[in-house]
C-alpha cells in the first residue's frame, strides 16, 4: 500500500514536471510536420547543464519573442541557458562590447558587411572546419551562402565565419487582389507586361505605384533595392558582382542605366502616388498603406518579404493583399533573378555551448520552429516546407527555390560608407532631381576616396 502510494506520488511528480517543462513550448515535440528526428538526435548528443549562451542581435519586439521560442527548444534539449537580447542599435553595440572585451558568445548580424569588418579585425572566431562543405551541400544555392559568410581574418586568410539563418526575399510586388479584380488587371509575367500594366492603370485614371524611401537616418535604402533589382534584370549576374566589388565603377553606363530604369517608375508623376517629389519624404513603413485605401491610392508596391508587418492590422494575406514576383525582361533572357538578404550567426566569444548552438542552428528543426511562427524564410534544404505558417510564406519560399540566380542585397555587401551611406543619400539626390550620371559619379568619388 505504502509503496504504491510512493510510486503514484512519484509518477504524479514526474508527469507534473514534464507538463511544466513542456508548457512554455508552443509546439509539442513529436507532433506536427516538424523534423523532430533532428531534435531528438541533437538532444541525445549534448548535455550542457549549467552552461550559458549569451546572444545579441537586431531582432527586437515580436521577432525577439519568436527567436526566444526557438532558443527555448535548445534549452530544453541541452539543459543550457540562453540569454538573447535584441538591440535597436545592434551595429554600434556589438562593436563597443567586442572592443571592450565584454562580447556575447554569438551575434546575429542583420547583414554580412559588419561581420566582414569585424572578422578582419580579429573580433570573430571561425566556424568549425567542415561547416563550409555542410552549408554548400545543404543550403539551396549553397555555395553563394558560403561565399557570403566567408571573410578574411587580420592575416588575410579566408575562413567561414557566418551561418545564415533567416532570409528575406526582396523581389516581390505587393498588390490588392480586390482592386486588381475590379479593374480586370492581370498579374504581369514579364517586365514588358509590368510596364504595360503601369500605363494601363494611368489610362484608367489610377496611380500604379506606391514608393517611399524615408527611413530616418537610413533614408534612401528602399531605392538601392530597386536599383539592384534593375541591375539583375538588365545585366548578367557577373556584372552585378563586379559592380558590388567596384571592379566596374559606379558611374559605368550599365549602372547608370539601371538607376534610370528605377527612375522610369519613380520619377514619373503619373506613376507614383503623391507625385515623384514625395518619394523621398514618404516613410517606407507608411508607403504600402495606399494599397488598402478606398479608392486605392496605388495598385502596386515593391518591397521585401518583411513588409506585411507594416500593413494595417485588419489586412488579411491572400484576401486583401497578395504578391507576385517582380518580373524580368523577356527580351533580355536573363532568367528569373531573385534579390534577397539575410541574417547570419557568427561566434564572438567561443565556448562549448556556443559550438552546440551552431550545431543546433544547422538542424532543420531550428529553422522549422521559426517558420511555423511566421515571418521567416530559409534556404536550408532539409526543412519540411509544410511547416511554413501560411501559403504566402510558402509561395515566397517557392520563389526562392525557382530563382535561376540568387544575389544578395548589394548595398549590404559594399563597404558601409558606400552601401549604408553614399548610395542611400545618392538615391535621395536622384529622386529629387539630380541626374543619374552625376549621382553615380559622386558615389564613385566617395568609393575612390576610401580605397
Amino acid at each position, binding site marked *: 500500500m505504502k509503496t504504491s502510494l510512493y510510486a503514484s506520488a512519484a509518477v504524479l511528480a514526474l508527469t507534473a514536471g514534464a507538463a511544466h517543462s513542456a508548457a512554455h513550448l508552443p509546439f509539442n515535440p513529436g507532433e506536427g510536420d516538424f523534423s523532430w528526428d533532428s531534435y531528438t538526435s541533437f538532444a541525445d548528443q549534448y548535455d550542457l547543464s549549467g552552461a550559458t549562451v*549569451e546572444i*545579441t542581435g*537586431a*531582432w*527586437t*519586439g*515580436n*521577432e*525577439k519573442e519568436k527567436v526566444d521560442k526557438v532558443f527555448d527548444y535548445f534549452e530544453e534539449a541541452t539543459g543550457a541557458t540562453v*540569454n538573447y*537580447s*535584441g*538591440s*535597436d*542599435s545592434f551595429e554600434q*553595440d556589438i562593436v*563597443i*562590447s567586442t*572592443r*571592450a*572585451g*565584454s562580447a*556575447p558568445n554569438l551575434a546575429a548580424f542583420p547583414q554580412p558587411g559588419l561581420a566582414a569588418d569585424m572578422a578582419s579585425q580579429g573580433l570573430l572566431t571561425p566556424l568549425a572546419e567542415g561547416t563550409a562543405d555542410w552549408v554548400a551541400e545543404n543550403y539551396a544555392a549553397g555555395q553563394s551562402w558560403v561565399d557570403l559568410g566567408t571573410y578574411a581574418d587580420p592575416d588575410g586568410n579566408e575562413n567561414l565565419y557566418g551561418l545564415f539563418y533567416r532570409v528575406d526575399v526582396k523581389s516581390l510586388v505587393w498588390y490588392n487582389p*480586390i*482592386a486588381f479584380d*475590379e*479593374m480586370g488587371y492581370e498579374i504581369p509575367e514579364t517586365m514588358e507586361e509590368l510596364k504595360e500594366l503601369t500605363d494601363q492603370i494611368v489610362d*484608367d*485614371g*489610377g496611380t500604379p505605384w506606391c514608393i517611399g524611401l524615408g527611413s*530616418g537616418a537610413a533614408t534612401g535604402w528602399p531605392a538601392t533595392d530597386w536599383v539592384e533589382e534593375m541591375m539583375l534584370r538588365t545585366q548578367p549576374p557577373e556584372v552585378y558582382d563586379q559592380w558590388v566589388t567596384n571592379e566596374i565603377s559606379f558611374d559605368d553606363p550599365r549602372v547608370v542605366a539601371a538607376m534610370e530604369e528605377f527612375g522610369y517608375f519613380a520619377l514619373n508623376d503619373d506613376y507614383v502616388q503623391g507625385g515623384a517629389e514625395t518619394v523621398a519624404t514618404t*516613410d517606407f*513603413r*507608411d508607403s504600402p*498603406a495606399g494599397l488598402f*485605401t*478606398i*479608392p*486605392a491610392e496605388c495598385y502596386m508596391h515593391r518591397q521585401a518579404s*518583411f513588409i506585411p*508587418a*507594416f500593413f*494595417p*492590422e*485588419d489586412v488579411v494575406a491572400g484576401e486583401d493583399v497578395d504578391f507576385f514576383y517582380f518580373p524580368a525582361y523577356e527580351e533580355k533572357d536573363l532568367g528569373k533573378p531573385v534579390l534577397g538578404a539575410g541574417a547570419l550567426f557568427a561566434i564572438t566569444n567561443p565556448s562549448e555551448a556556443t559550438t552546440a548552438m551552431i550545431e543546433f542552428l544547422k538542424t532543420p528543426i531550428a529553422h522549422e520552429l521559426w517558420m511555423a511562427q511566421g515571418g521567416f524564410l530559409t534556404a536550408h534544404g532539409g526543412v519540411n516546407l509544410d511547416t511554413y505558417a501560411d501559403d504566402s510564406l510558402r509561395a515566397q519560399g517557392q520563389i526562392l527555390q525557382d530563382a535561376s540566380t540568387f544575389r544578395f542585397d548589394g548595398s549590404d555587401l559594399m563597404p558601409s560608407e558606400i552601401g549604408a551611406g553614399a548610395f542611400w543619400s545618392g538615391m535621395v539626390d536622384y529622386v529629387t532631381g539630380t541626374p543619374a550620371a552625376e549621382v553615380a559619379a559622386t558615389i564613385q568619388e566617395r568609393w575612390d576616396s576610401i580605397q
Partner: protein
Amino acid sequence: MDQMAGQKTSLSIVTNISVVALVLIWLIPTIGLLVSSFRDREQISETGWWASMFPVEVAYRVSPEPEGVTQDGTLYTFSGNLFSASDEVSAQGSGDVSAFGITGRDPGAATPGQTFGRLKLVVSEPDGTTDEENYETSWPADGQPTAPETDEDGRPVQDFYIDRAVTVAANGDFTWVQDGEIGRAPTIYIIAAAPPDFGLQNYEQILTSDNMDRAFINTLTVTIPATIIPILIAAFAAYALAWMDFRGRGFLIAMVVGLLVVPLQLALVPLLQLHNKVGIGQSFLGIWLAHTGFGLPLAIYLLRNYMVGLPRDIIESAKVDGATDFQVFTKIVLPLSFPALASFAIFQFLWTWNDLLVAKVFLPSNSESWVMTVKIADDLLGSRGGDWGILAAAAFISIAVPLIVFFAMQKYLVRGLLAGSVK
C-alpha cells in the same frame, strides 16, 4: 506722463505677444504628442493629430451575404441593411451614408436615395454587327435609367439593360438587383462619417508589458546614486577650488572647464575596457561610476562659480573664530549653496533618467537589467520602429517622475542657475 504710460503699454504688449508666441511654439508639439499617444499607428499615418478631433468621411467596403433573393424575370433582387451586414462599418460608421458606389475606384459615385448601377449598352458597329459595353450611371430610385444615344467612341446605342444596380438609403437600407443569379456576395462601397477615435491602448500596452516594473526600478537604481554621488564629490571639490589656496588651483579649474567640451562618446570603449579589467564589468556599480565621471565637470564648474560668489566676510569671520575648512564647508558654505546643489541635482537627474547610450554600454544587455529607455527603444518599438503611438505614450509615461522632481525643486532651479553662471 501720458507718453511714458503709452510707451510702457506698447512695450508690455510686445512682451506679452512674444511670451504667448514662445509658449505656443513649445506647447503645440507637446499637445500633438499627447494627442498622438491616444491614437494607434494606422490613424497616425493616415491623418495629422490636428485633424483627429473631427469626424472624417471614410469609405467602407461591404459585402452583404445574399439572403432572401427574389426573382423577377432575369433580374434577381435582395435587400437588407448595410450597417447590420458589416461589423466594421457598424462599429465605426455613425449610421449615416453620405454617398455610395459599386467600384473601389469611385466609392462615392451616387448619393443616398438614388440607384447606381452598371448598364450593358448594346451598340452597333460600323460594319452592322452589335457589341455590348459597360456604362455606369445613377438615376432616381423610383425612376428608370437612361442611356446616352452614342457611346464614347460615337457608336449609336440601340438598346440597354441593367447588369447590376444598387439602391441605398441614408440609413443603410439597400436593394441589390442583378441580371442573372447572385453567385457570391456583391461588393458595395459606402462613404460614412467615422467619429473621432481615441483609446488608452498604447498606455495599456506599455504599462502591462513584461518587465516594465523591473525597468522602472532599474531606472531608479541607476538614477538616484548617479545623482547623489557626483553632487557629494563635486561639493567638496568646488569648495576647495573656490576657497582654499593651493598651488595649481587655477590650472585645475581650467582643466575642469576644458573637460566640459570633451564628448563622452570618446570615453565609452576605454572606460568599459577599464571596468572589465578591474572586475566591475557591466554592472550597476559601473554605470554609477560612469555617470559620476560624465557629470562631474559640469557639477564642479557650476558649484564652484556659485560658492565663489558667497560673501567673503562670512567665511573670513568664521575662520577668525577658529573654524576649520571642514567646518566652514559643512556649517556655512553647504547650507548657503543649497539652490545650486538643487539645480544641479535636477540637471543630473533628468540626464540620467533620459539616458539611453550610457545604459546600453555599461549595463548587461539581458532584459533583467533594462532601464526604461532601453525597454522602450528595443522592446516596445519593435524591429523596425514606426510605432509612433507607442513612442508618444512612452514619452508621457517616462516623463512623469522627472516632472514630479522638477516641480518639487523648480524654485531652486532658476535661482541656482543664475547665481552659478552669471557673474
